[in-house]
C-alpha cells in the first residue's frame, strides 16, 4: 500500500486517475477499520486532508461551503453554521464518539455510502449540493445523487468530493435530524430522519423535505412525507399523516440491528419527532425575523 497526501485538487485527481485500486482518506474512521479487517486492500491511499478546499468552511452566496474533510468537531464549533443549519450539524455530531468526531467528516460519511450514515438524510433534507473534482474538472450534484447502494457511489474513476454546499436560508426555515439507536451513543442508526421545513408568513408550512436513513439501500428523500405537511400547521393529524407516508416509503431489511417491522414503525415515529423539532425551530426563527 502506498500513501500520498497531495496539496492540490489537481494532483489528487491525477493520483486517483492513475492509481489502480486507490482509496480516498479523509477522517479515516471507516477506511482504517476496513483496512484492519482486510475488507479493502488498496494499492494507494490518497489523504485529501492537506488540500485547502477540503478543510475550509466558507460563506458563499449566502450559503455555506463545507470542505469534505472538515471534522465533525470543527463543524460543531462553527457557531454560525450551527445556528443556521442545526439539523445538519447535529446529524454530523451524532457520527460516533467524541474521538470519532475528532476525525470523521461529512465527505467521508457520504462517500462511505452506508445506508445508515447519519449526515446523509440531513444533507438531503437540506438540499445540499456536492462539489466533485475529477479528470473532467469539477461538477456539482445533489447529495442524493451520490450514493447508489450500500458501499456504492456514482463517483467516476479519478473523482472525489471536495466540498458540500448548504444553500442560503429563508427567514422562516429550519431543519432537524433525529435517529434511533438502542443505546444512547456509539451505535449505528436503526432509523434516521432529516427534516427541513419552511413556513409562510402565517406560520403555515409552505415547503417540507423529509429524508430517511437506514430504511432502504440508500438514504432517501420521501416527497410524500414532505407533501403531507405542506399547507398544514403540523397538528397531530398532519404529523400522523406524514409518519404514515414515511413508514410507507420504507424498504428496509432484517438485520442484527433491527427488523423490517421495527424499522418501518419507528421510521414514522422518528420522522414525526424530527418534524416537530424543525417546526418549533422554524416558528422561533419566524418570530425573530
Amino acid at each position: 500500500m502506498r500513501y500520498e497526501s497531495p496539496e492540490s485538487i489537481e494532483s489528487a485527481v491525477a493520483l486517483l486517475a492513475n492509481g489502480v485500486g486507490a482509496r480516498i482518506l479523509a477522517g479515516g474512521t471507516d477506511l482504517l477499520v476496513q483496512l484492519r479487517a482486510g475488507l479493502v486492500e488498496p494499492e494507494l491511499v490518497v489523504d485529501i486532508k492537506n488540500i485547502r478546499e477540503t478543510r475550509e468552511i466558507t460563506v458563499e452566496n449566502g450559503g455555506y461551503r463545507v470542505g469534505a474533510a472538515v471534522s465533525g468537531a470543527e463543524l460543531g464549533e462553527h457557531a454560525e453554521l450551527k445556528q443556521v443549519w442545526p439539523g445538519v450539524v447535529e446529524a454530523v455530531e451524532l457520527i460516533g464518539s467524541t474521538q470519532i468526531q475528532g476525525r470523521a467528516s461529512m465527505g467521508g460519511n457520504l462517500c462511505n455510502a452506508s445506508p445508515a450514515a447519519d449526515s446523509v438524510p440531513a444533507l438531503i433534507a437540506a438540499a445540499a449540493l456536492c462539489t466533485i473534482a475529477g479528470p473532467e474538472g469539477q461538477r456539482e450534484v445533489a447529495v442524493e445523487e451520490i450514493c447508489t447502494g450500500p458501499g456504492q457511489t456514482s463517483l467516476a474513476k479519478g473523482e472525489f468530493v471536495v466540498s458540500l454546499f448548504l444553500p442560503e436560508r429563508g427567514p422562516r426555515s429550519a431543519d432537524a435530524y433525529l435517529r434511533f439507536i438502542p443505546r444512547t451513543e456509539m451505535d449505528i442508526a436503526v432509523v434516521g430522519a432529516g427534516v427541513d421545513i419552511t413556513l409562510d408568513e402565517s406560520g403555515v408550512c409552505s415547503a417540507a423535505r423529509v429524508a430517511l436513513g437506514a430504511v432502504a439501500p440508500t438514504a432517501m428523500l420521501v416527497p410524500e412525507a414532505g407533501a403531507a405537511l405542506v399547507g398544514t400547521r403540523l397538528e397531530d393529524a398532519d404529523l400522523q399523516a406524514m409518519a404514515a407516508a414515511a413508514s410507507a416509503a420504507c424498504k428496509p431489511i432484517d438485520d442484527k440491528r433491527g427488523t423490517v417491522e421495527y424499522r418501518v414503525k419507528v421510521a414514522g415515529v422518528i420522522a414525526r419527532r424530527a418534524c416537530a423539532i424543525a417546526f418549533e425551530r422554524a416558528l422561533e426563527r419566524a418570530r425573530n425575523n
Partner: protein
Amino acid sequence: MSKTKLHVATTINGDSIEFLCEPQQTLLDVLRDELHLTGSKEGCASGDCGACSVILDGRLVCACLVLAVETNGHNVETIEGLADGDDLHPLQQKFLEHSALQCGICTPGILIAAKALLDIDPDPTETRVRYWLAGNLCRCTGYDKIVRAVLDAAAEMRAN
C-alpha cells in the same frame, strides 16, 4: 504491500520524535510496537472502545483510527505525558482518590478523554461528562466513580 518505510517527524508529549513506519501502520501500532509507549491500549482496533485515546493537535482521537504517517508534522499527546514530572495531573489524582479504576485497562484512555474535555469545558455537567466519555468503554466500574472523579477534578482545577 509496499516495503519502503516512510519517515515521519512528529512531536509526542513535547518531544520531537522521528520514526519509520509502513503506510498501513496505525498511530497505535507505532506508539506501542515501535516506540513502546504502551500506555495507550488496544481494546478493539476499530474505534469502539476508546482505550487508545490520544490527543492529536488538540483533538481527542482514537490512535487506532489514525495512520502513523498522518502524524507527520503534527503534535501527539499520550497518557505518558499527562503527569508533569512527579506531579500527577488533577484527573490522575482524583481517579486515585475516588478509586475510579478497577482493572485499569481503560484508565489511560479515559484520563486522556477527560483531559480533552476539561481543556475546552472547565465546568461540565454530569450529562456532558457522560456523553463525552461514551466512546470510552469501561466494563469494571459502572462509570459512577469515573464520572465523580472527573467532576471533582474539574472543580479542583477551577478552584486553583
